[in-house]
């Protein structure tokens, strides 16, 4: 019998206990992997190649304030800028104002929207149809599926921020690399229906010529309008998104404290199991030592046992994570965010490493004591 086989046999000797431990560690590791996946999506992921090339320009005071429409041509003239498109949040409610069925609506320029958002795809004839119709709109393919819309359908959106309602005809359906839940319509509609915002836009989406030039482009734009009537704040699309996350509260501390609690709980579970199993085997350990196994080997055997149980739990947790993300994506509240995140190889690796470390640390103290114990005392032990 090899040592590895000995470890495996012992690790699953008490089947019920091992299964319960694996399940318990598995659930904790599921949470850990899940939290790390969210962390990755928020703070590490770069986004699509096209997304890293985009800059969002908004009013320096706050996104709630608009910026002048004449900035557009000035931004376009700056070096490194390829395309500029204005966008304005309409914030209306669709149909019965049912919260779960709401989506974003932006007033924009149909001529240039898809040259800034080059990772969005729309059939050419639909795009042209939209560009010809001022009361037309284009919708995300997922959104269209969800509401059962097709090209030519009319939709009615009630204004809440603006004192008028939108009556739009769907002219096209676009696909995006990630779920957007967005409807775009012609900003002229807003300008004509509500004069006070004429000549103003909410923010600009700017396409830089390469991801490397994004910081310079952002800096150049802000410098251009530093002393203008309304100063701007420009940042990469990713940074802009992080701003929204930061507004949700101290998300980093929230995720980190949950991860810490989970790891500590796993440690307790694993330590408890290994302590129980070592206590039961005090006599066996003495027999092993009598047979000539060194302290080091005995220590290694127990640690090996704990690490394999923890790894089995970790594996279970990692395998279950995509399932949990899928479940979250089905829910109305989390669907938008969770359908866009994926577990990566790196996250899996870190989770498995965490499991192995927990197994190792939890077993060390009890196993060390067992390996150091007095042989004669141990043989006398009545378990």
């Amino acid at each position, binding site marked *: 019998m090899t040592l590895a086989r000995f470890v495996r046999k012992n690790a699953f000797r008490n089947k019920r206990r091992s299964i319960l431990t694996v399940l318990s560690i598995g659930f904790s590791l599921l*949470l850990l992997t899940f939290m790390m996946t969210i962390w990755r999506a928020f703070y590490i992921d770069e986004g699509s190649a096209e997304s890293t090339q985009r800059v969002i320009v908004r009013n320096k005071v706050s996104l709630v304030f608009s910026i002048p429409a004449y900035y557009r041509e000035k931004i376009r003239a700056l070096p490194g800028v390829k395309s500029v498109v204005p966008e304005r949040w309409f914030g209306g409610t669709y149909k019965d104002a049912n919260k779960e069925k709401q989506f974003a609506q932006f007033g924009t320029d149909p001529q240039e929207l898809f040259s800034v958002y080059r990772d969005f795809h729309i059939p050419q004839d639909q795009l042209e149809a939209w560009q010809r119709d001022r009361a037309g709109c284009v919708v995300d393919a997922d959104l269209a599926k969800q509401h059962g819309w097709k090209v030519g359908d009319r939709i009615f959106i009630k204004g809440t921020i603006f004192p008028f309602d939108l009556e739009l005809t769907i002219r096209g359906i676009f696909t995006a690399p990630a779920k957007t839940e967005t409807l775009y319509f012609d900003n002229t509609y807003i300008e004509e229906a509500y004069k006070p915002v004429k000549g103003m836009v909410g923010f600009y989406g700017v396409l830089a010529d390469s991801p490397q030039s994004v910081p310079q482009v952002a800096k150049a734009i802000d410098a251009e309008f530093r002393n203008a009537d309304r100063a701007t704040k420009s940042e990469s699309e990713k940074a802009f998104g992080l701003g929204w996350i930061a*507004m949700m509260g101290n998300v980093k501390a929230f995720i980190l404290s949950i991860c810490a609690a989970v790891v500590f709980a796993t440690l307790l579970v694993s330590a408890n199991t290994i302590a129980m199993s070592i206590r039961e085997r005090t006599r066996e350990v003495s027999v092993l030592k009598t047979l000539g196994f060194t302290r080091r080997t005995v220590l290694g055997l127990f640690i090996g046992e704990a690490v394999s149980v923890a790894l089995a739990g970790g594996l279970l947790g990692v395998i279950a994570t995509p399932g949990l993300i899928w479940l979250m994506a089905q829910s109305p509240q989390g669907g938008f965010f969770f359908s866009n995140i994926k577990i990566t190889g790196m996250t899996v690796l870190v989770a498995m490493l965490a499991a192995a470390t927990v197994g190792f640390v939890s077993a060390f103290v009890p196993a060390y004591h067992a390996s150091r114990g007095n042989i004669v005392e141990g043989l006398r032990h009545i378990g």
Partner: protein
Amino acid sequence: MAVPISYNIRNLVLRKGATVMTALGIALTVATAIFILALLAGLRDAFTTSGDPNNVLVLRKGSNSELAAGGVDRDAMQVIRDLPGIARNSQGDPMVSGEDILVIVLPRLDGTGETNVTVRFLTSQGIQMRPEVKLAAGRWFTPGQREIVVSKSVHQRFGQANIGDSIWIGKGPWQVVGIFDSGGSAHESEVWADVNQLASDFDRTTYSSVLIRATDQLSANALKNQVTDDQRLKLNGMLEPDYYAQQTSTGGPIKFVGFVVAFVMAVGSCFAAMNTMYAAVAYRSREIATLRVLGFSRPSILTSFVLESLMLALLGATVGIVLMLPFNGMTTGTSNPVTFSEAVFSLRMTTRVVMSATIFAVVMGLFGGMAPAWHAARQNILNALRG
């Protein structure tokens, strides 16, 4: 006959290591649950205790937020002032306050980036209509000056918010001249300034909202309907508490993720408790058989072990509650989806939160203890005595 509880207590004490580790595991789960529940309780508190039932908030029709384009114009304001049932102040003027809302960005002091803060522009009349708001330091703003008064939590959480500092709003710097205590209402997240100064800075001819103080609750309801039904006004009136109550959707993401986290952790803890209890049962199989021989029935053995598991869970719950006590009252903020700005609130470990967390632990103890207790009660006496 029931097995005495002292038997279970002694067993828990005897197996110290396993008891402590399992209880700590449950304690961590309970602490997480308390954290999430306390956050939600604090949020709910900030919004449901806000607003006076005698106050009617008037917004443009179709709008559900004070942060909407085009609100109440000055003509409509005149019509509103003449409505019946409006309370009058000591000078005999109707208590009506035209207000405006802006959102500005301030850097957080703890270095976690910047966030949106609501600036409410109002008159001294508007301040009088919110008696729960009191000046804590400095003075109120002077009409016609670019002066602002910040709430206590804005003062504590953001840079540039000490008395004497200035914050850039629109066309120029506004000086901080005072700090107010909102008495736990939703104004805790706000900055206040003079509405007339704003109107001249921004050329605003409309108010984003109007607050009316009614003489009593009956007239408040009547005023609400009158404003809403008046075809000339195109306005919508609602009772102030109702307005804030609809904002409790704030914190939706916390609630959603929090419940998932608590649930998954609870399942993990259940398995851990089950493990400990199975070990306890296995360890004592001869004892249990002896108890049976002595005449203790199966149901009483079952009850005894379930009770032991419950005690373990309650011990965990107590530790978890104690662990979380230092966090009670801690202030934090999250984004309010209605006003697009930060809503400040504190963690509140109310009796309800503590009770729910305890029940949560009891459920874990029940699930963890049921199967092992069943196993203990069902085992064969003769085999166990021999084993």
